């Protein structure tokens, strides 16, 4: 790789010894990207942006935060009242966490729909699930830090789950707590880990992207690019397309931060933690609700915990559960129906997770939980065998061309596969 292409002598001097500019240049211009990516492909970049926002606002918050049970709640109030623009930093951190999960959930369902988890992207997918797990751990520990009622009781309920593990369960819980209940040592270790984990995530994201760049992005049609006529350079095409997504994302985030900053939070977390007073309903953050519903759907504690982790475990082995050679749901009429059912099921689980575990809600949670596992463990393997898929186009360019020909057709007509 020659450094000649750079005009600036300083850049050239550095690049000759440390070829970072060549690397960036390579990513920008030489990395071929399918030319038919739709806006669903914005969400990876948006996830990265969310992570960056979380790390930056988090570091600023940590400058004024105190991890001690007697001062944590007060420290957060000081940030809200006395630190210059502290309220803004905190509201961004709070709301961007929710947006991060929205983005990653869309990112995951995008992968499910277009079969991005299939060969040769299995490891890329698995690294994604690892990121998702780490995100959940990070968000959970972050929610404990303001030391409000939900912080405390959420932490108590969730950490207690580990006691269901046979033999070592109680020791694990004691280790998490640093004592015999959620208390000051718990808060301290959670703060320490909450600070560390985002950087671990950043590391896994690097691996995720290395794996992505090995075979490049999948695309809405799900067939590999057959040559240069199917691809375009990342810059300026996808940088500009990502810019649109980033602008819309920031706009929505700003609307939440400045006009509805507490809409996705729970009012009880503005009450200081009180170990002697249990709130009427203990609910985790909204993004954990589907898993919380699965946990409570099982009458047995250990069974609930196993199923909850199982819900994520099935994602790890998904590439081997769905063996259909066709990636994109566009060519899989039955899979497509089940995909939307799964999305409805996931949202239903989220709704049920926020309801008290009684009466009809328990019954519905069980049905929805059963459907979730049925989808991955039974339906997908069966579909891989019995589904008749539609014929695939010969190349990415083919339907893209036919789409531009039918430009006058009604909205979306061109999205159908060309046959």
């Amino acid at each position, binding site marked *: 790789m020659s450094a000649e292409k750079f005009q600036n002598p300083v850049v050239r001097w550095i690049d000759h010894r440390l070829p970072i500019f060549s690397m960036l240049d390579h990513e920008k211009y030489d990395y071929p990207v399918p030319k038919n990516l739709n806006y669903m492909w914005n969400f990876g970049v948006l996830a990265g942006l969310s992570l960056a926002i979380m790390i930056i606002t988090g570091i600023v918050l940590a400058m004024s935060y105190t991890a001690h049970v007697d001062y944590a709640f007060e420290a957060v109030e000081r940030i809200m009242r006395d630190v210059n623009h502290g309220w*803004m930093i905190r*509201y961004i951190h709070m709301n961007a966490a929710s947006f991060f999960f929205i983005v990653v959930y869309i990112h995951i369902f995008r992968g499910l729909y277009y079969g991005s988890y299939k060969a040769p992207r299995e490891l890329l997918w698995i690294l994604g699930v690892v990121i998702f797990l780490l995100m959940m751990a990070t968000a959970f520990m972050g929610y404990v830090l303001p030391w409000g009622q939900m912080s405390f009781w959420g932490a108590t309920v969730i950490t207690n789950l580990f006691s269901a593990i046979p033999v070592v369960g109680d020791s694990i819980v004691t280790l998490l707590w640093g004592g015999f209940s959620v208390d000051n040592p718990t808060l301290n270790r959670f703060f320490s880990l909450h600070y560390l984990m985002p950087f671990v995530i950043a590391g896994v994201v690097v691996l995720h992207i290395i794996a992505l760049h090995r075979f490049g992005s999948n695309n809405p049609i799900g067939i590999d690019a057959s040559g240069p006529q199917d691809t375009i350079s990342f810059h300026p095409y996808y940088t500009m397309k990502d*810019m649109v997504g980033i*602008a819309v994302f920031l*706009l929505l985030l700003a609307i939440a931060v*400045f006009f509805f900053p507490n809409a996705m939070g729970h009012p009880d977390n503005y009450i200081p933690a009180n170990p002697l007073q249990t709130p*009427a309903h203990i609910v985790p953050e909204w993004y954990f609700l589907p898993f919380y519903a699965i946990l409570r759907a099982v009458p047995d504690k250990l069974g609930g915990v196993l199923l909850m982790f199982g819900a994520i475990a099935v994602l790890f082995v998904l590439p081997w559960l769905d063996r259909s050679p066709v990636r994109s749901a566009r060519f899989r009429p039955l899979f497509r129906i089940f995909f939307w059912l799964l999305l409805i099921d996931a949202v239903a689980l989220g709704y049920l997770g926020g309801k008290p575990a009684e009466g009809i809600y328990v019954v519905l949670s069980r049905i929805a939980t059963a459907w979730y596992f049925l989808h991955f463990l039974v339906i997908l393997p069966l579909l891989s065998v019995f589904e008749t898929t539609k014929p695939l186009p010969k190349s990415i360019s083919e339907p893209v061309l036919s789409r531009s020909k039918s430009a006058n057709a009604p909205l979306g007509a061109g999205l159908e596969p060309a046959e």
Partner: protein
Amino acid sequence: MIRYLIVFALSLFLIGPALAAGGAVELTKRDWSFNGPFGTFDKAAMQRGFQVYREVCAGCHSMKYIAFRNFADLGYNESEIKALAAEYEVEDGPNDDGEMFIRAGIPADRMPSPYPNDNAARAGNGGALPPDLSLIAKARANGPDYLYSLLVGYKDAPSDTSVPDGMYYNNAYSGNLIAMPQPLYGDDVTYADGTTASIEVMSADLTQFLMWAAEPKLEARKRIGVAVVFFLSVFVILSILAKRRVWADVH
């Protein structure tokens, strides 16, 4: 996928509130001046609300996170705040002799609490703890409407409900039995600006004051928000135009 996803998200948006609705108590919904993207506090109402807090609620409820200097937000000037703070007694120390001492308040002090600790507060209120009010407007669902409804919500209990000793019947409180005796009856205070101190007016004034106490940066937040949203909307439009331009030659 995108089209269906949008339809899906919209339908969630529409049925979501229907599913979430159906709470146990009816709240009076009011059109607060601080609602909406351009909302601001009503300074006169906040000053009156503060007066009601001082003269009625402060006997039982603390507001620990509020310092006297914060009252500048209510429209008081520096000397008024100094005078206000000086009306309170604050414990300070230890002095050079190692003794704690009592002095007049200064603007940097936080508002003193009526009870030295929670146990004393409980002991003084038949076992119930009057919560700190600094954050109460954010610590309850639909805070402002709830506070208003709670304060005007004392009614005679329906004949089929028995009210135990030390409990009072309230429409807005969940479970309807609250340990706080009705604090406002009308004309509990005399407003300096001549406003009639009806129970509704006092409750609304208190709500303005308590909302400010919970979210003192609300006005700045909305002001900055309007500018940011305007800027980002322009950014969205420009990026769409730029993207179209760049993509014009891709087929």
